[in-house]
């Protein structure tokens, strides 16, 4: 009887839904009071050797008993020895991660999602505008540019945080500048420790000349900031196709199956998180969508 075909469809694939692979925390870098970078390495060396990601992609990190959370990868995609995740402790899972130590084991699935178009942007000027926890998913882009600096034109990073204490990776800015990346930092509120720019990211756009025909704008951060960055970019006649946005949504599976992260026709986990803005535009101004 087994040899006979029913009309049912068969697909060969034998994994288990949401089954995690195990990864060890090899190092923890404290970034700010509520943000740290967790450096992970698969317990199984062959899995580590086989793992690669593209700048902008994310992993699902699982803490048994607490759940899974989508975390963007913030490390160098050409470093195959370790995977960095810069995590803000705000939810159940991320707070559980904050209590883990070096040597502890977490579940890891990934990489998932669409990357920043680093290849397509070759030959262009690049303007990165991001805020707060929006820098970590863009750091792999910065590393990529540093590795292949000659392939890109003028590169600018305009990064803002609430206060100087909330800035991510402050010790790296000089290295980036040495690699001819114009890193411009701003904070919403100044204080005694800060002598640089004060003001939100979109406010400083006026100081930069963007070649409308040849600049790609990449943005990630709070949705309100993204909104204004896009207005500024459009006001400078940057074509929609040259604006790229990374979005955040509630995600449970990472594979476009559970439905949670939908935004219009898109599953942000599968079709995003990085979108070319022309794809987002029809839904961008619809409230609570």
């Amino acid at each position, binding site marked *: *009887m087994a040899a*006979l*075909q*029913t*009309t*049912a*469809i*068969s*697909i060969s*694939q*034998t*994994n*288990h*839904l*949401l*089954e*995690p692979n*195990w990864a*060890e925390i090899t190092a923890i870098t404290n970034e700010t009071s509520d943000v740290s970078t967790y450096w992970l390495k698969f*317990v199984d060396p062959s899995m580590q050797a086989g793992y690669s990601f593209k700048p902008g992609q994310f992993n699902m990190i699982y803490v*048994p*008993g*607490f*759940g*899974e959370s989508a975390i963007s990868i913030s490390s160098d995609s050409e470093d195959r020895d370790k995977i960095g995740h810069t995590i*803000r402790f*705000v*939810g159940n899972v*991320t707070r559980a991660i904050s209590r883990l130590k070096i*040597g*502890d*084991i977490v*579940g890891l699935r990934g990489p998932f999602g669409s990357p920043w178009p680093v290849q397509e942007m070759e030959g262009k000027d690049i303007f990165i505008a991001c805020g707060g926890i929006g820098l970590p998913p863009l750091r792999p882009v910065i590393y990529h540019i540093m590795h292949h600096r000659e392939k890109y034109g003028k590169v600018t990073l305009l990064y803002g945080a609430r206060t100087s204490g909330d800035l991510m990776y402050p010790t790296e800015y000089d290295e980036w500048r040495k690699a001819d990346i114009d890193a411009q930092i701003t904070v919403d509120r100044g204080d005694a420790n800060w002598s640089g720019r004060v003001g939100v990211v979109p406010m400083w756009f006026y100081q930069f000349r963007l070649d409308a025909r040849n600049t790609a704008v990449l943005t990630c951060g*709070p949705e309100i900031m993204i909104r204004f960055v896009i207005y500024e970019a459009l006001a400078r006649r940057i074509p929609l196709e040259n604006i790229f946005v990374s979005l*955040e*949504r*509630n995600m*449970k*599976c990472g*594979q*476009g*199956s*559970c*439905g*949670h992260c*939908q935004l*219009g*026709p898109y*599953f942000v986990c599968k079709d995003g998180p990085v979108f070319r803005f022309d794809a987002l535009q*029809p*839904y961008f101004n*619809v*409230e*609570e*969508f």
Partner: protein
Amino acid sequence: MANNRRPEIGSTIAIQKPVFNIILRRLQENGYQIIGPRVKNETLVYGSIENMDELPYGYITEQKAGAFRLIQADHKHYFDAIPGAQSWKQFLFPPCVDLFTLRKNGNGWEISNSKLDSPSYAFIGVRACELAAIQIQDNIFMRPDFADPTYRERRQRVFIVSVNCLAPAGTCFCASMGNGPRVKDGYDLNLTELDDVFLLTVGSELARSLLDGIEYEDASAFMLTTAERSIERAAQQMGRTLDTNDLPELVLKNLDSPHWKEIGERCLSCGNCTQVCPTCFCWDAVDQMSLDGKTTSRTRVWDSCFNPGYSYLAGGNTRPTISSRYRQWLSHKLGTWKEQYGTLGCVGCGRCITWCPAEIDLTEEIAALRKETR
């Protein structure tokens, strides 16, 4: 009337109704668990049945927005009761599935994956709309790039006996959606119930083999004509209609319509529509930890875009209002689904209308949206 010739795939035969029990028995002998409509607690459910006697013989269902009644009527049909809240979804995409259990082991965890095995189901009485819904869920759970193992395991062994609908209910609109009442494809056997006989169209080799040596005759021209007429009549008797001509554009162009807010006043955000919908597929995964923290099990459960936690993010809820959630549901069903999976997400079964306690009727809401935008 015994016939030693196996009917060909695509051919239609006529059997005396009691002969159908032989087919059911043969399915059981081949390891199938028979699932069909049956009466339980004075209502209609899908559950295990042994033979035809357990089918809702002589029943009909009366359905309108927010109300369902199972009624003993004066007819001699097994398949005239249009289904209730339950659908075949609960067998292929069960409401609750254990995924794995983890045991703490030093720094790490030892995993034991739950067994994927499920019974081989034989679904008896799958309506055209329901078959369309199964095909829609196939697109979701068995994508070329990602197949859900729990769904696939169940789906690939299902035997389907579909039924042409001859007596649609008050909330039915499969004809509008182009799915019914005639079953198109995807069945092993397709059944049309006439007064005296069942007509069976053979859809698969397995079905052919089950018919080996049973008593049948080839369906006569008269029988086929009677069946055709009954199906055409049923198409005219749909309780609801939905104009799909301007879908999905109508919905997607009116995401800012004030009408959503008006629906939000009525919608209970209870999630019933999504749970009875045979195509709704959203799920959540939850962990349950033991008291000593050393064991945890992970379970996949049905979720709903009407649930508060559904779109929750650390920064707040993406869809904090009931109207935004209703808009998400409807604009997905009749809008963005098309771009995602190539079809609309609604098959016209009418369950969301019948089982909405607030009597919200998507066919009316779409009509209202259309009227407003003129």
